[in-house]
């Protein structure tokens, strides 16, 4: 029932918006900045038919360290892909960024270790050996708080590179559950993965975000964008092959087999009970409040921020 209402409302609002946009026409090409190279995690964006919603969108691939949340704030791009934790930090610093669509309902961040170590929980990884982490990230600090780093050697995250992992049995690293483990298995390694959500930390990931200012000035445009993206993801989830082909051309470092495998592994993160009820990309106040509370506890933000300001489901 809820789904019906949402859909109809969306249609009623898009019709005049379409007309308006058609009138203003393709004078402005919108920029959407990704925070990594074209990979299955962005499949729905490449699958989207923006023109159908009266938009012309230029997708800008990113890489290691692309500062998408700052780019949105600075106005150098119209939309960007960030994660929920980045949004909370940004907002606490006065950068008015708002989430519109959460591709990954659950965080695919995790830790990958060699299966031969017979580890049973995420805490075990911290008992021995080396762990490559981005120590600034909230989940890293949560791990430190919970388990302490006194028995493990912490080194910087190699950003997707698994060479050190393959060379050293006692080497574990932060990873995207949809990415590095697959690459490692292909190279013959036997891996065990632990999702970060195991310790209760589960931010929305691969989140489409926009600046608050732009959202207030142009709500219809943001709505059209969200709608286009939702459709794109529906299309991609139904059949990822053609878009995988397209993304492979843009990012030849990943072969088509891997594209297919990753697309499959990532689906349960994208399509969940919540999205089946409320539509792809949905977000809830509760999830945001939990995350904000975790940040407050970590001391990363000095004051709680209202969850409602962080996101808008259009």
């Amino acid at each position: 029932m809820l789904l019906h209402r949402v859909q109809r409302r969306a249609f009623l609002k898009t019709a005049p918006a379409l007309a308006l946009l058609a009138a203003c026409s393709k004078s402005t090409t919108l920029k959407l900045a990704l925070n990594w190279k074209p990979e299955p995690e962005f499949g729905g964006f490449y699958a989207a038919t923006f023109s159908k919603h009266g938009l012309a969108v230029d997708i800008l691939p990113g890489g290691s360290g692309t500062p998408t949340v700052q780019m949105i704030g600075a106005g150098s791009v119209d939309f960007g892909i960030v994660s929920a934790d980045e949004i909370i930090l940004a907002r606490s610093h006065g950068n008015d960024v708002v989430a519109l669509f959460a591709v990954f309902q659950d965080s695919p961040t995790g830790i990958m270790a060699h299966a031969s170590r017979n580890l049973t929980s995420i805490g075990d990884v911290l008992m021995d050996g080396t762990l490559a982490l981005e120590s600034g990230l909230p989940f890293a600090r949560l791990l430190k708080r919970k388990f302490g780093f006194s028995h493990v050697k912490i080194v910087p995250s190699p950003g997707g590179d698994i060479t050190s992992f393959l060379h050293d049995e006692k080497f574990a690293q932060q990873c995207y559950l949809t990415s590095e483990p697959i690459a490692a298995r292909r190279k013959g390694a036997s891996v065990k993965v632990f999702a970060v959500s195991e310790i209760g930390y589960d931010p929305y990931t691969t989140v489409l975000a926009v600046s608050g200012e732009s959202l207030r000035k142009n709500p219809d445009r943001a709505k059209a964008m969200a709608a286009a993206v939702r459709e794109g993801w529906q299309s991609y989830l139904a059949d990822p092959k053609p878009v995988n082909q397209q993304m492979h051309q843009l990012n030849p470092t990943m072969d088509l087999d891997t594209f297919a495998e990753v697309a499959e592994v990532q689906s349960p993160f994208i399509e969940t009970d919540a999205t089946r009820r409320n539509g792809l990309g949905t977000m809830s106040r509760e999830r945001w409040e939990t995350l904000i509370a975790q940040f407050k506890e970590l001391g990363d933000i000095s004051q709680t921020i209202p969850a409602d300001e962080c996101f808008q489901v259009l």
Partner: protein
Amino acid sequence: MKKTLLAPLIPFVLLTLIAEFLVRAGFVRAYLVPAPSAVLRAMIDSHAELLQALFATSVGSLAGFVMSALTGIAIAVLLSSSRGVQRAFYPYAIFFQTVPLIAVAPLLVIWFGFGIQTVIASAFVASVFPVIANTLSGILSTDPPLRDLFKLYGASPLVTLFKLRLPAALPQVFTGLRVSAGLAVIGAIVGEFIAGGGLGSVVETARTQQRIDKVFAAVLLASVLGLALFGLINLLSHLTLRRWHASEQ
């Protein structure tokens, strides 16, 4: 002496005041460029962490720099021995100059592991070439009449190298060292991005925490380190060359 210290301080103070005003008044957003007062506060709040990081980076860059100086001069001396040697090996020296450090650093980690040894290796790779190039140039550009003089009195090539060509090359050696010093700091920090530790790791962590004030604080300290090294070389150069070289008068 007062003038040399005072003069550069004036633009620094002016710039700091202007930056502070721009951020406070909202012309520049604080999460893009931090106000100088915020950077100062970050420095004070995290002073223990920053000082320890500064020490680690200093060790890494200094060690890398000293290696560059010694190896660079030695390589230049070897290259100067014959035209053929130069033609065969100089292109490989140029490789150190042109290789993108950020691409090589991960390789260094694979070879040397995570730790300060990789930071030193990175600092070395970044800073060795200017020493080689400048020293070689200095050795090869010895005054021909002086070389004739040594030849006239039967000095062997080795004697000519140590008593004439190397001392004559000293001003250029110092020029190379001056350039190399700053590069060693950069190299160390790039190494730290990948291998951990020092100011590089502070920058990396602060960046992921969106603590741009802390990033600036760390970067500022790195610049101070580079300046300090540069100043040290200048002092050495002055003490060594002051009686005889126009550049020091």
